[in-house]
């Protein structure tokens, strides 16, 4: 009996070792993320609390509260993020609904139109809008030749251009989870609602829509978070008139070499992102967003 017990202990020890060794397979990945991301960001966190005189100070954070230019940057960032998310919902939800109702073959074809921009380079798409929306661009020349407006409208290097570009880039992030949620709705529910006397509109808003809200929240959350830290599109299409936090961080480093100010902005951005994810995780299964579900 004693020998058997020792044997069992040994087996258990072997299994523990085996599991640890398997866990060790992830160490190159973990190490890389630690060295290139976690430690440097940790250092930025530290630097954000160091003032110009090299001592501990909160001046980098006080600046954000006291200076109106900083307050405006935060306002713009949230404004762009909210507007982009809202527009994505208004445009993406109907399209996802349309595709979800098509027969499989046609639906796959339509999904390609959603996935194609997803695969195309962000910079290429931003450039495309820059070319289309400029004064001599296609949209203006077509609009004027159709008599819709008389003089070239300024559609780029401002908020309009930024929003058009951002919505175009973010739409797939909203459409894909919403489409997934819609495909999961049992068609019999709608039949039952109709059978019980609900008008089509009522059946949609009281049965179908509530069932798709988890996908809608997940997509909207993803879009909002991505918008908060977005850089390329507002930098190119905003033309210096739409200044978001990420752009201020870059100019603080590139123009002013002020690591403290840049780090503090970065920390605020990161804390805002994590806070939003944390609040959302209380209502949603976040694994779903990361794609780790099922």
């Amino acid at each position, binding site marked *: 009996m004693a020998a058997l017990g020792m044997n069992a202990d040994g087996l258990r020890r072997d299994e523990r070792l085996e*599991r640890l060794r*398997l*866990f060790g*397979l*992830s160490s*190159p*990945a973990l190490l*890389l*993320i630690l060295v*290139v*991301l*976690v*430690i*440097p*960001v940790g*250092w*930025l966190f530290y630097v954000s609390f160091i003032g110009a005189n090299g001592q501990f100070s909160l001046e980098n954070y006080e600046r954000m509260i006291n200076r109106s230019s900083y307050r405006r940057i935060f306002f713009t960032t949230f404004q762009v993020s909210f507007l982009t998310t809202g527009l994505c919902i208004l445009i993406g939800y109907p*399209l996802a609904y*349309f*595709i979800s*109702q098509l027969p499989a073959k046609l639906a796959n074809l*339509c999904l390609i*139109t959603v996935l*194609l*921009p997803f*695969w*195309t*380079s962000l*910079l*290429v*798409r931003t*450039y*495309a809008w820059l*070319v289309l929306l400029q004064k*001599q*661009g296609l949209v203006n020349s077509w609009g004027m030749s159709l008599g819709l407006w008389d003089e070239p409208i300024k559609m780029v290097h401002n908020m309009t251009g930024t929003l058009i570009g951002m919505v*175009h880039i973010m739409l797939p992030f909203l459409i894909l989870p919403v489409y997934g949620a819609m495909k999961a709705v049992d*068609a*019999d529910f*709608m039949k039952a609602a*109709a059978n019980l006397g*609900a*008008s*089509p509109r009522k059946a*949609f808003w009281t049965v179908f829509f509530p069932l798709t809200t988890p996908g809608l929240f997940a997509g909207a959350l993803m879009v909002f978070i991505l918008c*908060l*830290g977005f*850089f*390329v599109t507002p930098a190119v299409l905003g033309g210096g008139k739409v200044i978001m936090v*990420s752009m201020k*961080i*870059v100019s603080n*480093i590139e123009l002013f070499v002020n*690591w403290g100010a840049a780090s503090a902005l*970065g920390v605020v951005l990161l804390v805002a*992102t994590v806070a939003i*994810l944390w609040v959302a995780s209380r209502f949603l299964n976040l694994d779903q967003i990361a*794609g*780790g579900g*099922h």
Partner: protein
Amino acid sequence: MGGWFSKPATETQVTHGQRMWLYVLAVIIMVLLVAPTLIVIPMSFSDSQYLEFPPQTWSTRWYNHYFGSEEWMQATATSLKVAVLTMMVATPVGVLAAYGLHASRVPYVRAAFVLILTPMMVPLVLVAIGAFYAYVQLNLLYTITGLVLAHTMLALPLVVIVTGSALKGYDMTQEDAARSLGAPRWQAFLTVTLPQIRFAVITSALLAFLTSFDEVVIAMFISGGDNPTLTRNMFNALRDQIDPTIASISTVMILITTLAMVLAQVFGQQKPPK
């Protein structure tokens, strides 16, 4: 046609005619999603400075400018080299991590998974200036190695998520069977598991390639000197003025991306070796 309009389209008996607005709206949105990118291709063959569509006179002048410029060619070579190397590093490292985390079931798995997802959660600008600082200390600034490491870090969450979800749908007892027949674990993985999660691994490799090839913000900070990437140079050119050369470069980038996707499809569809 009239019959189709009055036919019910949904379970609640709404007819096709009644929701014509939805069809029109959906088609407009789909055109707006695809057209802006595709329109760049014919425009890049325009002879005009303002990139007309349709071009009044066709020419390859912007391509001549791109392919004749040593600076652009070098940047393209750097981007391709970095993207291929990122794919070759991120795929095995990410697949190993996904497999390790899936199979080990130790209590730290959850924490490790969160750590691997952090590159997706941290704003890219913060990642970029952090890497910039770290590379100054590590002497990796403006090097290919530095770019590959940073892009690998960025691609890892995608590889782990895609491969990990394939492993969740895979029956691990098949590997146990191979091992009970005497195969060591690595052999069981390579000959039994890997062929079955092949498609996810190839998709991961494609995602890693594209992540690196498209990346702008990190490259803005840590590429430069002798090794600026294509996207870095493009971004700088866009900030100054609308250079029509960018249209030809965009077309080449669309071509490379499409080629990568087609290759992934071809390799992914092949039957596993018997």
